């Protein structure tokens, strides 16, 4: 028997051979026959049999060995798979509907994981029994490791080997002010300032080892995945990930790539406040059931400020449907508060931390941790004593008042205010129409943040039935269950979230203008079109450059891709009708279609083009500029004016 098994495995599964031997040795006990059957099933990759036989085996001969886990260990892929480089996430597989997708709130500084456990959302804990996992990765020697077994954040941070704030760096080019602001983090962020991706490196064995935000995220997700699988005792594949509102589609593809590298499939990407909105919808529906209420429409403002991003959403909720009315977001958060405060407390910090010497990195880390502590304490106390020894006789010892924090971050708070006002305006909702004001995220406990939201909402009381730190991940877990097709007998999953586009998507036309085809705050899935025409007589080619954003000028927006329409029939300018259609499907994939029509013709005169976006690769910030330079305005389009 053993020989047969060995032969089988040696022939068919050479990779797993050593593991087999171990397991087979384990199996050779008195109950070996039953074990054999189970083992064989494992080998033959028949999970269903394993599961079925398990009960029988336990009943008949008291076998306790967990063959299901064993089976899964066998089947487990190597920890770090880098899948093909393609952007595609593929069609939604049928397997999507057999397992509950996990909700992950992958924050700039912290991460949480939750899953729908049949009747409610359950937050998963790491091996140290913490619900909160710090989003950072420490590189060690030749291998990299995450944080779950690391004893202390401080020690790691001073070595230069720890990379964090990936969410702020991902998908950004080095001219981006956000990347520039990351340069005084305790690891290497090197920029060329020309619009390419920055170099990010960790100090390992006194050597700067380059990495990418995607890779760091992938390593982190691999650890996360191992932790989840260990707890749920099953393999996971599908996840619902929360993302900041201000992420461009290009950045979303980077997140998708990181997930693909970690062997995860993104079922849905949800802007953080919309996940909170879904949780709110669930709570409202439960209340409604309890009170037998009529379930009238409730409008809520959701303000979410974490370490890296600040997002606002207005949602209208009725009967378990959360309809997002408007979204607004910006790259401001606790990280900005921290950096402004560091500059305030230690003005020379920026000059000091230029060379990235090992000693400086240590100082940077020390100052960071001390400042962070001060900010945390200032939430509950109005004055805190800062006491930090940076070495080399540099000591900072002084009391810090809460008003100093508020003064140093005046602009950040102003930006928060303008985001809320903008969002209310976009949603066409007056403050007095708001039923609830929800404030979540790591910065929600800062008194100034609370007061600014309350001020705008005319002193309306803040919603209390939500844990501000767990709301987003709980919402993501609920969406995971809903989108996985899970039914709840109590109707707790009778929910739906109707998402909208956080940014407008359009093309460059009318000179250097950005002409949206899909407007901001359009419900998804969506399909819209606009007709353009040529600006030159006998123009036979046209360049379609697709952007996403809110800027009026094309170059103020994020480039998503470009393609050329050729063989436009020869005609005077303004005659050909170039029909640009944008389609966002259920999986949130954007396709841009372009066809050419001529007046009087019944169909498109040339084969239409269909291009999946974003099609640009990493950090091609200069791409649009180069296109402009080499083609000038010869391939331009204008929006078609209605003929008088």
């Amino acid at each position: 028997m053993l020989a047969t098994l060995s032969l089988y495995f040696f022939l068919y599964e050479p990779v797993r051979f050593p593991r087999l031997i171990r397991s087979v040795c384990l199996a050779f006990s008195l109950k070996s026959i039953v074990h054999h059957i189970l083992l064989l099933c494992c080998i033959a990759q028949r999970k269903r049999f394993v599961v079925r036989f398990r009960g029988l085996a336990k009943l008949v001969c008291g076998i306790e060995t967990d063959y299901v886990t064993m089976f899964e260990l066998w089947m487990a892929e190597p920890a770090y798979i880098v899948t093909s480089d393609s952007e595609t996430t593929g069609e939604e597989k049928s397997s999507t509907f057999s397992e509950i997708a996990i909700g992950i709130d992958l924050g700039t500084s912290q991460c949480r994981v939750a899953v729908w456990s049949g009747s409610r959302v359950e937050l998963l804990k790491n091996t140290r029994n913490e619900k909160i996992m710090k989003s950072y990765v420490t590189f060690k020697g030749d291998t990299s490791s995450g944080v779950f077994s690391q004893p202390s954040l401080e020690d790691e941070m001073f070595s230069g080997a720890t990379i964090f704030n990936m969410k702020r760096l991902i998908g950004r080019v080095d001219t981006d002010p956000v990347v520039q602001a990351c340069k005084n983090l305790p690891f290497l962020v090197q920029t060329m300032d020309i619009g390419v991706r920055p170099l990010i490196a960790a100090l390992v064995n006194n050597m700067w080892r380059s990495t990418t935000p995607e890779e760091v995220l992938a390593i982190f997700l691999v650890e996360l995945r191992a932790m989840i699988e260990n707890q749920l005792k099953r393999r996971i594949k599908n996840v619902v990930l929360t993302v900041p509102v201000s992420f461009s589609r290009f950045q979303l593809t980077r997140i998708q790539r990181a997930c693909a590298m970690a062997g995860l499939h993104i079922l849905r990407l949800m802007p953080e406040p919309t996940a909170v909105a879904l949780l709110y919808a669930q709570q409202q529906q439960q209340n409604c059931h309890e009170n037998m209420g009529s379930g009238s429409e409730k409008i809520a403002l959701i303000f979410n400020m974490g370490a890296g991003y600040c997002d606002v959403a207005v949602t209208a909720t009725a009967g378990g449907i959360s309809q997002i009315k408007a979204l607004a977001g910006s790259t401001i958060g606790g990280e900005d508060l921290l950096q402004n405060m560091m500059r305030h407390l230690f003005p020379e910090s920026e000059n000091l931390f230029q060379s990235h010497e090992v000693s400086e990195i240590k100082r940077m880390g020390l100052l960071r941790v001390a400042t962070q502590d001060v900010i945390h304490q200032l939430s509950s106390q109005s004055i805190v004593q800062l006491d930090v020894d940076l070495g080399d006789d540099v000591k900072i010892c002084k009391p810090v008042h809460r008003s100093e924090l508020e003064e140093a971050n005046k602009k950040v708070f102003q930006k928060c205010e303008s985001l809320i006002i903008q969002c209310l305006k976009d949603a066409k909702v007056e403050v007095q129409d708001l039923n609830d004001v929800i404030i979540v995220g790591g910065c929600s406990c800062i008194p100034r943040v609370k007061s600014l939201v309350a001020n705008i909402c005319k002193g309306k009381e803040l919603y209390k039935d939500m844990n501000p730190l767990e709301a987003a991940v709980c919402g993501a877990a609920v969406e995971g269950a809903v989108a996985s097709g899970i039914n709840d007998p109590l109707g707790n999953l009778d929910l739906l979230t109707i998402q909208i586009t956080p940014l407008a998507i359009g093309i460059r036309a009318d000179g250097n203008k950005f002409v949206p085809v899909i407007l901001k705050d359009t419900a998804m899935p969506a399909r819209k079109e606009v007709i353009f025409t040529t600006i030159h007589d006998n123009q036979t080619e046209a360049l379609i450059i697709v952007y996403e954003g809110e800027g009026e000028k094309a170059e103020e927006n994020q480039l998503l891709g470009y393609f050329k329409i050729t063989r436009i029939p020869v005609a005077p300018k303004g005659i050909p009708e170039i029909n640009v259609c944008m389609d966002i499907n259920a999986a949130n994939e954007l396709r841009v279609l372009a066809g050419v029509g001529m007046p009087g013709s019944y169909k498109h005169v040339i084969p239409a083009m269909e291009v999946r976006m974003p099609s640009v690769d990493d950090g091609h910030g200069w791409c649009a500029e180069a296109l402009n330079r080499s083609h000038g305005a010869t391939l331009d389009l204008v929006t078609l004016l209605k003929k008088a």
Partner: protein
Amino acid sequence: MRCHGLTVHGTNHRGFCVPTVSPVFLRPTRPVTRIAFPKATLKNEGLTMEFSFYELLGIPESGSLMEIKNAYKQLARKYHPDVSPPGRVEEYTKRFIQVQEAYETLSDPSRRAMYDHDMAKGINFAFNARRRRNYHDQVVEQKTEWKSRWQSQLSELKRRSSSKDGGGNMSWAARMRQQRDELSNESSNDS
């Protein structure tokens, strides 16, 4: 003004078929009498296109905002990709986009008035481009602007209706409501 999605009743709407469904692309539509633009048809959509927004939402044309919202929510529950059966996501997504469009138009009083007017004139909006594709107007929905657009809309309608056999190919709903709508349009012009 942008050339927007006005098509003459009885013609198919223009647009693209959803590419993942079938490579059959830009198929010319059934014969039409008056056409100003290349046409393509969405697969399996012959029927839904004939529906008015009211019919699509399954509400009477006198339906209140509440009815519109409720109907929309019911249909969203059915057709939204999050809740539709796995095999029919593509088809339901198309339906969802239509329902969404209908809801957006009818839940906005000014756009509903315009839509009602267009219906009365026998002009059927094509389902994909039927919205006034004029983003300036949508961004700045000021009354004055709406009014000016309304005027140009009217002149365009006059031009069109003068060049066709006055109301001959109106939908039944349009014919039935023409009189009432004209009344309401007059009042909205006054405001």
